[in-house]
């Protein structure tokens, strides 16, 4: 009787539930199934137990991709958020036209397609006549082949990624800054607090929830880094990862296994390993936050 009463409600939820099940639950379940099978997408899948997981974890490319990723995260997340925070403070200090101008200017790279961003930076990094090397030349510094020197490739990518993502984080932090009551700053000023002290004791604590979001989001995005290094290193299944794999990242490695080597089972296992890492990272972030709140 009760079920019949709620039938219209269930009917309203049904389209979403059907779409959710078809395009979200089913692919996850089928991916999980295939992660235990040797499967090339066409022939019948053969159960192989944990062999795909073992094959991924024991491969040289996985080790390389993960070590690149760890270094990339360790630099990109704190540096990217610091840059975005600096930009947010800068834009917040302007009013009217200039505020809008800087907000738009810094946000512009966010809306650029990755292809364009990578193309622009490939030109900028070009040896000899790229803009970056031209600037180095003005100071009599030697030309650097940023996208071929294994010592500079990762940092070249980090600069592009920070350029691309800083605007997004800036807008979020800026919204957080707007929410901080101005009278707190006035009271601090009356008490003789310097600008730095105001940031240290008012801005950062008041922005804590926003910073938590930005840091968590930054981690998750960094774990999934794919398009810019893919495009910077040749954007093809035969040339990705760059010189000596210095720009090889897990998602690229996974794509290569799926469509380059046609090992869908192994790629599915890779996907679940990455998912597990993302879950662990996110849980660690929430755990740290809870611990801090308890203190």
């Amino acid at each position, binding site marked *: 009787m009760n079920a019949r009463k709620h039938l219209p409600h269930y009917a309203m939820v049904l389209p979403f539930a059907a779409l959710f099940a078809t395009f979200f639950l089913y692919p996850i379940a089928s991916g999980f199934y295939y992660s235990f099978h040797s499967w090339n*997408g066409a022939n019948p899948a053969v159960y192989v137990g944990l062999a795909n997981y073992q094959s991924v974890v024991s491969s040289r*490319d996985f080790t390389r991709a993960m070590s690149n990723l760890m270094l990339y995260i360790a630099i990109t997340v704190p540096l990217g958020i610091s840059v975005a925070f600096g930009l947010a403070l800068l834009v917040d200090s302007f009013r009217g036209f200039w505020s809008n101008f800087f907000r738009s200017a810094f946000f512009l790279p966010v809306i650029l397609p990755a292809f364009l961003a990578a193309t622009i930076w490939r030109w900028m990094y070009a040896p*000899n006549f790229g803009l970056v090397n031209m600037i180095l030349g003005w100071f009599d510094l030697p030309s650097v082949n940023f996208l071929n020197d294994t010592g500079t490739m990762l940092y070249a990518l980090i600069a592009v990624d920070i350029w691309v993502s800083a605007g997004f984080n800036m807008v979020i932090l800026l919204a957080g800054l707007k929410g901080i009551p101005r009278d707190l700053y006035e009271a601090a000023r009356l008490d003789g607090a310097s600008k730095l002290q105001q940031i240290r004791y008012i801005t950062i604590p008041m922005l804590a929830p926003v910073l938590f979001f930005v840091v968590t989001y930054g981690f998750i995005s960094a774990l999934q880094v794919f398009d810019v290094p893919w495009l910077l290193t040749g954007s093809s299944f035969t040339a990705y990862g760059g*010189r000596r794999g210095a720009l090889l990242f897990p998602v690229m490695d996974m794509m290569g296994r799926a469509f380059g080597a046609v090992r869908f089972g192994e790629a599915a296992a890779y996907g679940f390993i990455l998912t597990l890492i993302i879950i662990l990272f996110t849980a660690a972030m929430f755990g740290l936050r809870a611990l801090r709140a308890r203190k």
Partner: protein
Amino acid sequence: MTMRSRLAQLAATASLLAAGPVAAQELQYWVYSDFAQGDALKLQQEFIKEFETAHPGVKIVISGKGDDDLTSGQIAGAASGSLPDVFMNGLAVGAQLVEVGALANLHDQWMAMPQEFRDQFDKDAMASCSPAPDKIYCLPYTGFGEIMFRNLTVLEEAGIDTTTPPATWDEWLEQMKKVKAAGKFAMPDQTQVFNSVASTYAVVGDKAKWGVDFDKHQTLMDPESTTKLMQAFIDMAPLNSGTSRNDQATKDLFITNQLAFHVVGPWVDPTYKQASVDSGLKYDFVLVPGGKAGDHGGIKSYEIVGVAPGPNQDIAWQFATYITEKQQMLRWAKLLSRYNGNAAAMSDPEVAKLPLIEKSVEAVHYAADVMPPYFVGAYPNCYRSIMTDVSSGAADKEYTAEEGAKELISQLNDCLAQ
């Protein structure tokens, strides 16, 4: 209207209605994106129109795809049962496509064709499509043999006589050193992509010992040739531009008279030709020198036309034979000045005298296949990355030539054993 005429009208209408869906046969035709734009697209549309006129009720829908989209789309299409009916791709991905069931075995249809048709195709190209006597997985389409583009201004500034191209690797290396001494770059960095490593191997190594033995899971590379390969990278390291052969930066260096040699397929010619008009670039193209006089290096490969298994296979085969047939390949060659796998078209006097084709036909004769044998096994990802990594390691002086060769062969065999 009498009853009889009314019945006749009804019968005619019914037969039309019944015939309609049967006759309308739509073929999905996937090509590389550069075949689906500009003049190339216009010519493709001409072929399609001609074929449709000769086969009423058949409609061909052409779609251009990027290299990776083409492969991933065909692999995903095979998995989901929505393969295009007829499509292009590169020989190098043939084994993956066979593995997923994207390519029909065309042996019987090929054998049913008149001898005259079969004789049109380049024998080596056709052999590449046929991994076993009873298997044929493709028809050769466009292709390339690498040639060496030379910037004559750079060479003249380095005091090099440009009238006689270097005949051997040693002569070529001497010229590279002179170019570097004149403050310019000799070559792109040949260690960056698999194809340029293969290209360098074809210059200094034994071309019969290149590729993979899929039965034994071993590389065919031998220590002697591989040592020469490593030594070539060590020798070229201080002379190169640090850019990949495929980078726009490499073309820019060539156009701005900073780079002497660019060993690559003929597809860069339109860019260089335009630069010769715009900025007076002085360049030519010659055969890639070989290890010894009379031999030459460089790699070759083909784009292929494949047909998917399925209900449209017969008509798709007919379309494939139409577009790869001499008359169409002639028109292609004239339009693009590009080599293709139809030997009859290539030897047509009007086409054979086109400079780029003349040189390409010659180059293909000497060049090594990029990833032989085709349609037998897929080169695993590690094979390609090991090749470029160890080559880079040798160029970075992490290994001597002998150590690099040993390391490369050992790592390649480990990769294949997995």
